[in-house]
């Protein structure tokens, strides 16, 4: 029973990892950009949530109403102001520029908020639990998982059913020809980054409610998101959710064996998948 409980906890944790991963996956899909600062942007969102809740005295989930548009705006400006200039055949500029961005973000947060761990207070929901078939599940992890499913379904809808998603796919296929159709590549990429960072805002708030955070934890969030993407298979958002679940389960089972093994077990699960199925478990099948 304890093991089943651990697996359930891990599964729910996987929802959070899928949220870390979704933005990463989206921008890679649209513009082949891997954003090394992605984890630090998640942490930035958590701090923005913290400041919003403290200043306005509102619930962290209400803070999303401010943090999501703010992060989307930051994403758009970041993309058009800096990241668009790094895109091209060479992988070095985007990698090194986002790496520099990561260092800047981390140290700016350190300057503003100090290295002390912070946490957002979400009230009773943090400790509430529901009994499910003999198990007791936390309401917050269940809610997080449900949000992850909703976000991924929403992204799928945008990607495959809307004009914006059509523009993303067309620009990703061939940006020159997309430009001929009246799509401004710089704007389309800006919109993609805005959407990705809006999702990041959700991930950041949920992270900050669930655990304490400090400016240095971004790197690990990037790695978890990345591992979920690779385990699930590139270009498949539902696969990314599955990847997040596998990572989360590996971590909780590892922690059950020995607390020091929690993160290591997750990395080992990732390396095993990389060794036996480098394309991931559920890669996109191009029709």
């Amino acid at each position, binding site marked *: 029973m304890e093991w089943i409980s651990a697996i359930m906890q891990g599964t729910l944790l996987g929802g959070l990892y899928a949220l870390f991963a979704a933005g990463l996956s989206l921008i890679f899909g649209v513009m082949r950009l891997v954003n090394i600062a992605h984890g630090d942007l998640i942490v930035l969102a958590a701090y923005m949530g913290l400041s919003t809740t403290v200043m306005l005295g509102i619930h962290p989930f209400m803070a999303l109403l401010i943090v999501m548009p703010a992060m989307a705006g930051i994403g758009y400006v970041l993309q058009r102001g800096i990241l668009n200039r790094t895109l091209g055949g060479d992988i070095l500029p985007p990698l090194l520029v986002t790496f520099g961005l990561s260092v800047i973000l981390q140290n700016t947060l350190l300057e503003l908020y100090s290295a002390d761990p912070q946490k957002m207070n979400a009230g009773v929901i943090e400790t509430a639990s529901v009994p499910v078939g003999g198990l007791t599940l936390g309401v917050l992890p269940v809610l997080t998982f449900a949000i992850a499913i909703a976000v991924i379904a929403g992204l799928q809808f945008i990607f495959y059913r809307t004009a914006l998603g059509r523009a993303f*796919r067309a620009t990703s296929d061939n940006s020159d020809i997309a430009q001929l159709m009246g799509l401004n590549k710089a704007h389309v990429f800006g919109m993609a980054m805005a959407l990705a960072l809006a999702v990041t805002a959700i991930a950041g708030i949920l992270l900050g409610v669930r655990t304490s955070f400090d400016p240095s934890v971004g790197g690990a969030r990037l790695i978890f998101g990345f591992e979920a993407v690779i385990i699930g298979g590139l270009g498949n958002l539902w696969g990314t959710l599955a990847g997040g679940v596998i990572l989360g389960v590996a971590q909780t089972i590892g922690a059950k064996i020995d607390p020091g093994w929690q993160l290591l077990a997750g990395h080992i699960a990732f390396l095993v998948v990389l060794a036996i199925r480098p394309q991931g478990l559920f890669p996109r099948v191009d029709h």
Partner: protein
Amino acid sequence: MPDPVLSLRKLDAHYGDFQALFGIDMEIAAGEVVAIIGANGAGKTTLLRSIAGLLKNQAGQVSYQGDTIGALRADQVAQKGIALVPEGRQLFPSLSVEENLLIGAQTGRAGQWSLGKVYALFPILKERKDQASTTLSGGQQQMVAIGRALMANPDLILFDEISLGLAPVIIKSIYDALPDIVGDGMTAMIVEQDIGKALSVSSRAYCLQEGRVSLTGATDTISRDDITRAYFGVEA
């Protein structure tokens, strides 16, 4: 000639250090269908890419409906009503047939062309509308490429080698459809290696040779010999 729709003034084009066009002057009137002919590497595709904004020029080198558009980006040129049917079709593989057509309408320009009218012109596309564009035959893909350009309701449409790589019977059916397309006052430029085809649908022709205009005139007045000379730069 009355006010031209499109005029080029000493248009140059470069790829890095390589100069592909040298001082091209050209004027095209509203409703005209003009053929651009020339040997491989003469600069025909470069000319269309320059007009469409995929290659940057100085603003004044390209004027369109009274505006200087040489320095605009391709999406801005598209908004102004110029559409290009690119060489090799270049459909979006991630998009279905219908999505490829819909994205052509992205500019939101009003006009007579709609999904329904494109389907009426090429009925086979309606049957295949939910298929991935990559599963179509070459001729059907060319129909999508043409339909996609029409969906933008352009005033000026540029065709780049639309017969390339297609079977003669397909080429014939596409060229048979052309009068329907340009019949309603749309201005068109047709780049072709197949001179006969190009001249059969156009009223005027320019011949390019090594990046320069080597011959120009009404299609019914220029002779075979003129063309050969202009094409190859030698006495026939």
